[in-house]
Every structure is written in C-alpha cells, then in structure tokens.
C-alpha cells in the first residue's frame, strides 16, 4: 500500500509538471491518523501531503462534478468502486470526462476505525497498514489486527477490484476480483416477519438526526437542489421529533437513487448514527437484479438504468405478494 502511495505521488507530480493536469484530487491526512480527507492539490510541493492508505475511503467521484467544470484538467485517483460512481456520473451528464485524467488506483480494502476501536483498541492515535495486517498505535501501545477483520462494511461486500474507467492504472499487487456476497444483510431482514422488519427499521431510522451526511456524500445525490430542500416540492422537511419524516426521507432518497446507486457504501460509512443505510440501496439492487436481470450501475456509461427501462414481459407487481409470507 505504501508503495502504491509513493508511485501515485510521483506520478501526480510528473503529470503536474508536464502540464497534463493543473490540479490533483486525492486524499490528505486529516486531524488524526485515521481520517484521511479529500483534497485538491495545485502544486507539486503541495502533493507532499498526499496520503493513500487504509483510511483513504472517501469516494472522490462526486467532487468531480464541480471540479470537472473548472478550467483545465484535473488528475483524479479513483479506487475500483469509485470508478463505477464516475461512470454513472458520465451517464447522467454530471461530469465532463474530457477534463478529468483518471488514474485507477489499487485498493486492498479500507479499514473501519470504529471496528478497530470496538475490538479493544482504545485511545488510537495513528494506524499503520502492513498489507495483511493493520497496526493501531494507541496511547497504551500497539494493537495488531488482521485487516480482513476490520474492513469497512462496503469493503467486506466489495463488488470487485476491476476499474471500469481509467486513463492509466497503478496496480502493484493485482487483487482477486471475485465479488463478495453483498446481499446477506438484505436477506436477513427479508426473512424477518413484517413486524420485526418494521421494528428493526423504526429503531434504526429513529436514530437519524437529519444531518444529511448520507445525501451530501452520495455520488448519486447530485441534484443541484434536493427535493427535501425545495419548499415547492411538497416534501421538504427538516428533522422531526417523530420518526415518520425520517422514514419518508430515507425511502424517497433510496427510490431516487435506485438504479443509479453504485453501492459505493459511502452513506453508511459517513452516517454518524451508524444507520445501515446501504441495506436500503442494496434491497433495490437485489430486487432489480432478480426481476430485471443483473445490472451494475456505473459498469458502463451508456446502458439504461432499470427504472427508466422496461421489457414487455416484466414480472407483474403481484410477484411481491406471490413470494410468500403473510399478506
């Protein structure tokens, strides 16, 4: 991983100096050693701060909506799952492909600081990545973890290590491209009774504080003005003492991104209340795959998303009730 970061850094400086790009978007160190933050670098000297490690989880694609409209070309480092988001944004005409130089960067999975903490590492000051293992430096000494055990949810459910769009690649250690089962969590909820499902979601969604972080980080939520901020939409609302508006917010948000969501998992990663928002999106993905054929949003930049498409012999809506369970 460190080697990848060094190559990336060098290449970024090279491209800046050659004038191929005039800016670079990547990650820089945050306040702590585990909160790498998206950053735009404009000088070769500035790139000293560039970081790429197990905490470089933020998906940079959404930043390119604005960045690609600016003067000159920008270099963007995109992890495999981030390239899906970028492709989807091309499909929706939200980014200017010509203004972005994409380096597809190798990803071995990103770590979740909360898991590290929950697994007994208190007082974490910094974290080092050793490829297979992750070492948390804490006030009380070092703790070593198997990386697979502390991965972010979105990386546990990694959809593959293939970059679907790039101008060049930095891949030092080719990774196993086998996608993991993403739908176990959805299935677990499907197997509950309606009462249990409702109880589950009421508990989860009532935690929502309407900070809008999920929306703001989501590359599919790229509207200039969100319907929830638009008083004329009829659904605009703020945080409410009751849970119903939060439900509405999350249902509508999930429906709006259905067929467009690339399952980048950022919504769950950034949620300060740890609501498993990815399950909402994955439910749609699972259903669309089951009813309308396998579809991966962002796999390319042309095909029609399932909800703006149809086939004359699509399943009838009654398939839902026919799936069994009580009425």
């Amino acid at each position, binding site marked *: 991983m460190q080697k990848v970061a060094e190559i990336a850094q060098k290449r970024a400086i090279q491209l800046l100096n050659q004038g191929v790009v005039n800016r670079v978007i990547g990650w820089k160190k945050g306040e702590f050693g585990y909160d790498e933050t998206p950053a735009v670098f404009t000088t070769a000297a500035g790139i000293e701060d560039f970081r790429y490690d197990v905490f470089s989880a933020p998906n940079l694609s959404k930043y390119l909506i604005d960045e690609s409209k600016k003067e000159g070309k920008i270099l963007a480092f995109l992890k495999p799952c981030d390239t899906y988001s970028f492709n989807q944004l091309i499909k929706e005409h939200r980014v200017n492909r010509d203004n972005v130089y994409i380096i597809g960067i190798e990803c071995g999975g990103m770590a979740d600081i909360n898991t590290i903490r929950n697994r007994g590492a208190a007082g974490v000051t910094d974290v080092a990545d050793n490829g297979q293992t992750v070492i948390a430096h804490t006030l009380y000494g070092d703790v070593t973890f198997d990386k697979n055990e502390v991965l972010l949810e979105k990386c546990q459910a990694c959809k593959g290590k293939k970059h679907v769009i790039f101008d060049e690649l930095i891949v030092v250690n080719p990774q196993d491209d086998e996608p993991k089962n993403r739908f176990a969590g959805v299935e677990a909820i499907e197997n509950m009774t*309606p009462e249990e499902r409702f109880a589950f979601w009421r508990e989860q969604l009532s935690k929502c504080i309407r900070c809008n972080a999920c929306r703001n980080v989501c590359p599919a939520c790229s509207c200039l003005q969100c319907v929830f901020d638009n008083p004329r939409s009829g659904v605009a609302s703020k945080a409410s003492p009751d849970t119903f508006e939060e*439900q509405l917010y999350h249902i509508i948000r999930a*429906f709006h991104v259905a067929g467009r969501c690339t399952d980048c998992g950022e919504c769950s990663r950034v949620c300060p209340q740890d609501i498993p928002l990815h399950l909402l999106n994955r439910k749609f993905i699972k259903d669309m795959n089951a009813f309308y054929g396998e579809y991966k949003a962002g796999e390319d930049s042309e095909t029609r998303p399932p909800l703006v498409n149809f086939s004359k012999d699509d399943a009838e809506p009654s398939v*839902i*009730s026919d799936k069994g369970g009580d009425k």
Partner: protein
Amino acid sequence: MSVEHESFKPTIVAFCCNWCSYAGADLAGSGRMQYPANVKIIKVPCSCRVNPTFVLRAFQRGADGVIMCGCHPGDCHYSTGNYYTRRRMTMLFDFLDFLGIERGRTRVEWVSAAEGARFASVMNDFVKNVTELGPNRKITDLRTKPEHKEGE
C-alpha cells in the same frame, strides 16, 4: 382486535389512469356495482404519473391502503407508461414490505375501460384485505392520528 376490525373503515386511496381505470370505475358506476365508500379515486393522466411520493404521502396522512390502477400492459394510451409503472411500483411496494409495511396495503391492478365489474371486485377484495390488516400506524405521521400514541 376483532371488535376494532368490525368498526374499522380503512381509508383507501386509488390512483386511476384517465384512459382505462378511471373509465372502468365509471363503468362500475353506471352498472351500479357496489364497492365500499372508503375507496376514493384520484385521477391521473397515466399510472406512470404516480410518484412514489404520492403513495408515501397518502400513508403518512392516514391512508390505510393505496391501490394503483392502470391500463393493461400493452394497452397504455401513451403506449409505454404502464410498463414504467409496473417496474416502479413493483420496486416501491417490495421496498415498503422490506420496511415492514404489509404488502397487503399496496397493490397494482390493471383495469381496462371495459372492466367495470372487475374494478368493483378488485376494490371489494382490496378493502377486505386492508380491513383485515387493521389501521396503518406504520408510516403515518402519528400527529395526524391523535388517538394513536407513539409506541402503542
């Protein structure tokens, strides 16, 4: 609960497309075919005009069931509208089910302008199902139903 069911009259919102289902409802009327008065019809040009927001809004404001009626697939006045409805509402209703909103409270039915009798029987059946499920407290804005306290 059974006592409540007998007196419980659910509020049902039916979205009907102008060309087929609304006309089917008219035909049910001209044929004097009875179905419960709890069904209130909202006319839309095409079932594909129905935004999921409308469905959620109905539930929030106190509806106990929402039914969507359109032309039979292949007969859409706008040729393709109900194909989109079919996908959207299959997705939405399964999603609501995923959140624990009973699937019996939502339904899509294709009713042509000639199917007055079917319109009436579909409504009778739907009202019966929703009545059995009882009042919807799940995604209603509980403030609109003062008699039901949160956590009841």
